[in-house]
């Protein structure tokens, strides 16, 4: 099928390898991947800060460029939630409400797309390391994405998954929250890192690069003996 891949701003700028991995995986599975040129952002920062008019200016362009898409795979849980769950609320009562409601069922976060839509769990990947998984809040609670990443990891050769106690607790990113309340954000990130370190895992894996940016930022600053990696980067390794 024709898969429209939506690459959010921070993946485009900071973690392009995640998007590249996703495109390669989808193509290897035999699908055609298209990337809309225009939109670089789903509009969540303005939406979360309460500036819904300004958010709509960005989100409308997303709606327009995705109109007529067969399926939309979004490279992050938080943007996926924005488009699937929050666009209908953002556009409620406006002339774009119908477009938003039409888009929602077509949206998938990447791991959910592989497992729930394509029914694929084994990509022939190999990653002989001990890992623990961080459930990004949007993916977990807005998109019900607990199982798909774990089903995918179960098929990765050599991968050993150890769950951390704080897997489902927020890492503290929260978009602009991380800059508006940096001390709380940092404390939350520290709780997350401490829980991950208790598992003796080599890697913290997630389906959300914004979370990983927060966690890696702390790891680097505090010189913690653990690394972060996006699930797609694991799945593309043979």
């Amino acid at each position: 099928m024709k898969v429209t891949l939506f690459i959010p701003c921070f993946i485009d700028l900071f973690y392009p390898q995640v998007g590249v991995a996703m495109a390669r995986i989808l193509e290897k599975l035999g699908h055609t991947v298209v990337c809309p040129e225009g939109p670089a952002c789903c509009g969540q920062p303005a939406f979360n800060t309460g500036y819904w008019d300004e958010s709509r200016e960005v989100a409308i362009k997303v709606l327009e460029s995705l109109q007529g898409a067969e399926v939309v795979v979004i490279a992050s849980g938080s943007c996926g939630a924005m488009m699937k769950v929050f666009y209908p609320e953002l556009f409620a009562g406006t002339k774009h409400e119908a477009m938003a409601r039409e888009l929602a069922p077509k949206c998938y976060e990447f791991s959910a797309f592989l497992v729930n839509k394509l029914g694929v769990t084994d990509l022939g990947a190999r990653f002989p390391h001990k890992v623990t998984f961080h459930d990004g809040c949007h993916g977990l609670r807005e998109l019900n994405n607990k199982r798909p990443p774990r089903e995918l990891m179960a098929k990765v050769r050599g991968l050993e998954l150890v769950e951390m106690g704080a897997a489902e607790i927020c890492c503290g990113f929260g978009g602009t929250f991380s800059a508006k309340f940096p001390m709380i954000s940092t404390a939350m990130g520290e709780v997350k890192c401490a829980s991950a370190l208790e598992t003796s895992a080599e890697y913290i894996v997630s389906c959300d690069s914004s979370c990983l940016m927060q966690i890696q930022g702390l790891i680097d600053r505090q010189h913690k003996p653990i690394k972060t990696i996006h699930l797609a980067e694991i799945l593309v390794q043979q």
Partner: protein
Amino acid sequence: MSTAAAQFNQDARRLSADLRHRQTIQTAMGKYEVARDQRKTAFQDWQAARQMAAETKWVAVNHLDRHLEQFVRNIEARGAKVHWASTDEQARDLILGILREKDARVIVKSKAMTSEEIHLNEAMEHAGYEVVESDLGEFIVQLREEPPYHIVFPAMHLTRDEIKDVFQRKLGDAPSNNPEELTMVARRVLREKYLQADVGITGANFAIAETGMLSITENEGNARLTAALPRTMITLVGIEKVLPRLEDLALFLPMLSAMGTGQTLSCYNTMYGGPRQPGEMDGPEEYHVVLLDNHRTALLADAEQRDSLHCIRCGACLNVCPIFRNVGGHTYGTTYSGPIGAVITPNLRGLNDWKHLSYASSLCGACSETCPVKINLHHHLLQNRRNASRQKPSWWQKLAFKAFAPMATRPALWSLVTKMGRLGQKLHGLVKGSRLDPAYAWTKTRDLPPIAQQTFKEWWRTRS
């Protein structure tokens, strides 16, 4: 930035870095979580129970006038006196009036968050009454002259040594730091107060419309004694606490206990329907019920957020909130903390002064997920942010987002942003971590990733 917001930031900064506080709260919450999950699993269908509870509260609150009238009719028929207080000042005046009329001296109280809300204790003490909090946690924080830390566990933040210390200082009686012995000290002191008290003041968890009763949930028995021994009893209750029927308690009592404390049922769940009835030989001769509005009708009028009035004050959202766990209850600086507090306080006390509570959230959604009556808490935080920025826009933020829009939607501009970003990052090295650093909020405690040599969009363009 309002005074409250500045204070919040200051306290949050201090508490977030306090590792001892972090450990204390994490330990307490860990124990709670184990018990809570056992209770949820015992339910045959917890999710269906949540939906049932949500619908019951929806009926209760969306027909609030009818239910209040029914409640009043039924409880007045048994001799209770009902008073209507639109404001906190009216509520205080009503209660002080009753105390004056009854020539009271000693007042014993069981836990009532509404009384915190209207600052009743200060008003009574100022008027010369001796006021004793009977709930052990409330008793302890009263001695320490600080507000309760958590709506269900007022002294969660204290160690046994700190409690021993205040007992020694204020009561002159603290045999050891053993929790059992300390509890017995409180029991001895309070027993005498129950017997001395002229007036007992309680809150209520639910107001049953159908039968005209107030339902009070507790573990210690202090509310039972407050309602049994003094000659006059007063219950202060928010108007939103209504439930339509007596049998709705069959659902709400176990859900409240499961989420509040991880218990099957709390030790005492008691329904009070009036003063002592003919044939009864004890209980108060007079029973006054003060119905409190205090901006609840304003919340009621906001149809989008009306369901925040469904709250049964179980405290579950506080317990799962990572912000609450890291900054603690006192940091919120107001009666209701945690996610529910962050939702209702800006609406009850002023959007502009208290909006920061709605912003101090990563919107993780754990609160909405846990709420036994399915209040859409994190969506309400977003709505408060929207309302706040409409009421008083921050011009520089508005400008920033407006300027971002074309950059985020036009490939040529985004490409420019990318290139300028790379340049900026090179220069950033000069100011990184210092006060001149525009990204200081982040870089103070975390490293920033570099912009990639080739962004995704740049790579994609090379393919086609």
